[in-house]
């Protein structure tokens, strides 16, 4: 499964491959709209290489043809030419940096937008398994690492390769013997690099794993701090952490030592090449087979030759990181989104005026449901392997315009049932039909616009009051204000600075709990779905707000098919029918008055909530809640 792959990748070692053709092809596909820029920057590389090669050659001409011959006008011409190459070089570099970053960042941002859009379509089950932080890392961090390929990774490697080749060609053309001499140390450099590669890699991996270990332990220490302090384990924990920290430092030191060694060897070899050039070149100059200019040019070519080789390892680690990130990003993109059907049933106006027989607004036929993954994690669960059913064989018909109250104890399955109606999850057995069409066949957006789900947990977004009510839809202000009046939020809204345009603080921190509930009712009223599924808030609010809230909910439910997870007496009393759930099963249903007379589970629940022999009413309601 993709989910589990995502999970396991999270803590994976970053020792992946440098290049993966399949991933590279997928990243390459994202450059399609920018191929022109890619083409331009491809042209820039040979040009840059040409400038790199020309400059030492100009030095050669300056020395051999002008300085040593006392030709000042000639030297000045070369000087001007050199200045010209510098100007060209500057322009080319600028163009190259800008174009490669431009392409890279465009790809990054496209990929990020695609990823974000894809995540919006992932099923609820995905979010149950993947913490927000992980998805954030994919969208923000990993995508950026892929962009590095364009600025510092593959693109730079290609550029370096072109420069290297040009330098070699020119050197060969200038002086064969000196060129061979320059390359004489290459095998040594290669041998050293090969010999040190494995130890350096191991040292890197050691340092990284030990750091990861240290950080994991620290994270746990911080989370478990109360336990550590209560049990007086501070000193022992400090020792353990210090131990891990020391082990990390040792690995770091080893890594650093190897790196310094590699660096020193490269530097010494570079200087040796200069010495060899000096020696052999000196002899050839004495013999008249070499000019000073060529010797000086060779010294400069040597520098331009070894610099990219020295920086190669940095570029390869950029590629490695990018490959790992690309793998994670594409694994997320490959996670299948929830797919709806194509059916958008034409639903006529509700109400008794139309004498046509309508299918029931909602129908459940022997529905069984278990949360994905439930019953598999952990030990000691009863019935190994069998799913932990949250809903067991529920069948239910809700007619158009009917108001149904769902009641039951904690964990009876009320919220789960509500979620199934909007296809937040897919049922394992049985069928859920809305307006006579199976929910799997419905177009998802149409389904969720038809069946509105209002959750107990009020989520407010950063933005104004009005934006939180309309949720960005184009709704006339008059309508917003009308709804606000109907659910009693206009009074307190007008007290805010800016009224409906007042900014809500993060998560509505400047609103009381009751006010947030009212906002959520107003939001649902503006959304105006034909069928409403409401999870009534359980948390207590002051009596005044409570009164307003009841009023607002009545306003919301009026003239609508509705399923309410009811906690308030008034809501239950006004329901056409009460459905009683227990342990995921439908155990009883009927009008409140009928059920109450029946002396079953409902009666007990009722007495529990409102006291034995409760006649109902606000006083009893409030007492039970206190």
């Amino acid at each position, binding site marked *: 499964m993709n989910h589990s792959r995502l999970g396991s990748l999270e803590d994976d070692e970053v020792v992946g491959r440098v290049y993966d053709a399949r991933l590279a092809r997928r990243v390459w596909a994202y450059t399609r709209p920018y191929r022109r820029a890619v083409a331009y920057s491809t042209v820039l590389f040979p040009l840059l290489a040409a400038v790199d090669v020309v400059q030492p050659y100009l030095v050669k001409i300056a020395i051999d043809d002008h300085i040593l011959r006392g030709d000042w006008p000639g030297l000045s011409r070369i000087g001007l030419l050199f200045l010209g190459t510098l100007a060209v*070089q500057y322009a080319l570099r600028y163009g190259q940096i800008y174009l490669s970053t431009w392409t890279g960042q465009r790809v990054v941002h496209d990929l990020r937008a695609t990823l974000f859009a894809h995540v919006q379509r992932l099923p609820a089950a995905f979010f149950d398994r993947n913490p927000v932080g992980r998805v*954030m890392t994919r969208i923000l961090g990993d995508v950026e690492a892929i962009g590095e390929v364009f600025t510092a990774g593959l693109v730079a490697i290609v550029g370096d390769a072109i420069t290297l080749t040009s330098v070699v060609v020119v050197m060969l053309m200038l002086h064969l013997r000196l060129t061979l001499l320059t390359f004489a140390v290459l095998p040594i450099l290669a041998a050293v690099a090969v010999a040190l590669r494995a130890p350096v890699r191991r040292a890197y991996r050691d340092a990284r794993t030990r750091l990861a270990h240290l950080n994991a332990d620290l994270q746990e220490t911080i989370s478990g701090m109360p336990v550590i302090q209560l049990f007086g384990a501070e000193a022992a924990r400090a020792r353990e952490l210090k131990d891990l920290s020391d082990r990390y430092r040792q690995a770091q030191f080893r890594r650093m030592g190897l790196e310094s060694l590699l660096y020193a060897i490269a530097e*010494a070899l570079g200087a040796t090449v200069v010495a060899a050039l000096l020696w052999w070149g000196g002899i050839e100059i004495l013999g008249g087979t070499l000019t000073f200019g060529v010797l000086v040019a060779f010294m400069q070519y040597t520098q331009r030759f070894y610099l990219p080789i020295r920086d190669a390892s940095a570029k390869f680690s950029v590629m490695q990181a990018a490959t790992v990130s690309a793998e994670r990003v594409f694994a997320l993109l490959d996670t299948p989104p929830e797919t709806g059907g194509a059916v958008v049933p034409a639903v006529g106006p509700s109400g008794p005026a139309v004498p046509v027989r309508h299918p029931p607004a909602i129908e459940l036929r022997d529905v069984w449901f278990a949360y994905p993954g439930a019953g598999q994690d952990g030990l000691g669960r009863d019935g190994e392997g069998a799913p932990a059913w949250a809903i067991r064989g529920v069948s239910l018909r809700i007619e158009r315009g009917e108001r149904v109250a769902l009641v039951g104890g904690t964990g009876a399955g009320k919220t789960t049932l509500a979620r199934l109606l909007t296809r937040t999850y897919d049922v394992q057995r049985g069928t859920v039909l809305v307006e006579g069409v199976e929910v799997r066949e419905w177009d998802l957006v149409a389904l969720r616009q038809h069946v509105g789900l209002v959750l107990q947990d009020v*989520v407010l977004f950063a933005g104004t009051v009005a934006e939180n009510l309309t949720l960005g839809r184009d709704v006339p202000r008059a309508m917003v204000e009308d709804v606000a009046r109907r659910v009693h939020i206009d009074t307190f809204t007008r007290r805010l600075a800016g009224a409906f345009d007042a900014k809500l603080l993060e998560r509505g921190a400047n609103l009381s709990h009751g006010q947030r509930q009212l906002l959520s009712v107003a939001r649902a009223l503006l959304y105006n779905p034909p069928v409403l599924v409401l999870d009534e808030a359980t948390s207590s609010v002051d009596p005044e707000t409570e009164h307003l809230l009841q009023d607002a909910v009545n306003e919301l439910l009026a003239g609508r098919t509705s399923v309410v997870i009811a906690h308030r007496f008034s809501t239950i009393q006004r329901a056409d029918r009460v459905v009683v759930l227990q342990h995921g099963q439908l155990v009883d249903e009927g009008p409140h008055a009928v059920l109450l007379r029946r002396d079953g589970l409902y009666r007990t629940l009722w007495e529990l909530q409102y006291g034995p022999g409760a006649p109902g009413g606000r006083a009893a309601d409030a007492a039970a809640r206190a």
Partner: protein
Amino acid sequence: MMPVSVLGRYLARHRVRYAAGVLLLIATNACALLIPWVTKDVVDALGGAGRSTATRETVALGALLVVGLALAQALVRTASRLLMLGAGQRVESEIRADLFDAFLRLDLAFYQTRRTGDLMSRATNDLQSVAMLVGFGLLSLINTAIVYAGSLVAMLRIDPWLTAVALAPYPLLVAVARRYTTRAHAEALAVQEQLSRLSTKAHENLSGMPVVRAYTLAPREIAEFRTLNEEHLARVLRQTRTHGLFSPLLAIMTGIGALSVLWIGGRAVLEERLSLGVLVAFSGYVAYLAWPTMALGWVLAIVRRGFAALGRVTEILDARPGIVDGPDAAPLVEPLRGEIEIRGLTFRYAPEHPAALRDVSLRIAPGSSVAIVGTTGGGKTTLAGLLPRLWDPPPGTVFVDGREIHTIPLRDLRAAIGFVPQEAFLFSRTLRENVAFGAPEDGVTAAAEVAGLASDVARLPRGWDTVVGERGLTLSGGQRQRSTLARALLRDPQILVLDDAFAAVDAETEVAILDRLLERIQRRTTLVITHRLRVASLLDRIIVLEDGQVVEDGPHAELLARGGPYARLWRRQQLESTIEAAG
């Protein structure tokens, strides 16, 4: 303390290493700077100064000298890097250790106000930046200074006039760099700001996903994200433009230096005022200056970032815990008996918060068992947390064995109280280590027996050696709670506090565990916070807390007869169990 003085304190401890490193750095650069000098002599001998005086031998000697210098340079550079970077790693390690000590010392009030993510980021990202500062940053900074000074001296010795020519572009470079730094800083901030908006949006969206789904908000969310994303792109590209204009400039400046030497120096050579060797040597020096110059911007960024990070780390290092031993704390001479007395205790979590406990007074006899019940938010957990001073009660309100608890050393107090918290926390290590948690490991089996954990251990794949916790095997909630109970029991505390420790097991199991517990640990004061009145009814006495006040206090039978809040709660729970039974 200021970050600079904090850094000075740590660096001073390794001054010998740093000093030796700097000396070697000077030596290695001296070797490097001598190479162009030797080249100059060889070139001049070959006829660069007019007439050739060289033989094959003098050329070979010069070349050998260069090889020798190169080897010495490489060797000495490695040594200097090992010394300085090694010292940097030691400093990093010491700051990390001090940070860990600070973490372990700070109290719950501190952790309440900070998110784990923020603390972790200081211990990881910030520490990494500090490590860069004290290691590579410092090394590069000093190296750059030495290279500049050394080159300047060498060049001045050869030809002051040509030196002036070669270095002419540098003042311009400094001026440009200064302008660039200000602009780059502002642009980097703008990018950071937008990134934070983008990340806030993503976070809000992902955590509000149920609403996004229910209200079919995806199109709007995608559009909003796209707008923020576009703006981020625009800012990044603006930054790129500046970077693209400036960064090749450094290389070009070096090129202009080389050109000046070639052009103006070349004229001097053709007028025979200078030798060709000098020209070659100067080109070498200009080239040697190129890399430190190009890296300077990067090094300065490391330094700036390092100091900012150090500031954030220092904040933690300087934080002082509020809960420490009182000034007159004296060690316990004999074990506590476990008598608890609370006198007129009013407690707020912060001055601006409402009181969580209001004028609570009660006395609990040593060896008795007491249940604390009441509604959520009534103050039960607060009361329990004050005993081991997870939160600090006002002075003169809480007494154990007649001693005001601030006069008991924190270590002794906590060792005497076995506290089992609501949230059963297990570390990612073996179950044995989790239960022993520093105490002798031979008692774990007995403790597990009492806690009702023994049969679970037998069924684990590797028994006591099974690694549990976040990175190990996931135990069920009940198993976790029984493990933490065993952890507390193993220490044989005089006072046992169970803070709603069995919410995850069913009522039957809780009653069974408590029954066994009361039987085994007689003469220990036991405080049980619970929502289940059947459990409470097993204990000697029941305290009902509501809105931070004691509303009822007495044995089960007595409270039931009184017909007050406890009796109402009891009836309610009876009904609930009827419902349970009906299923």
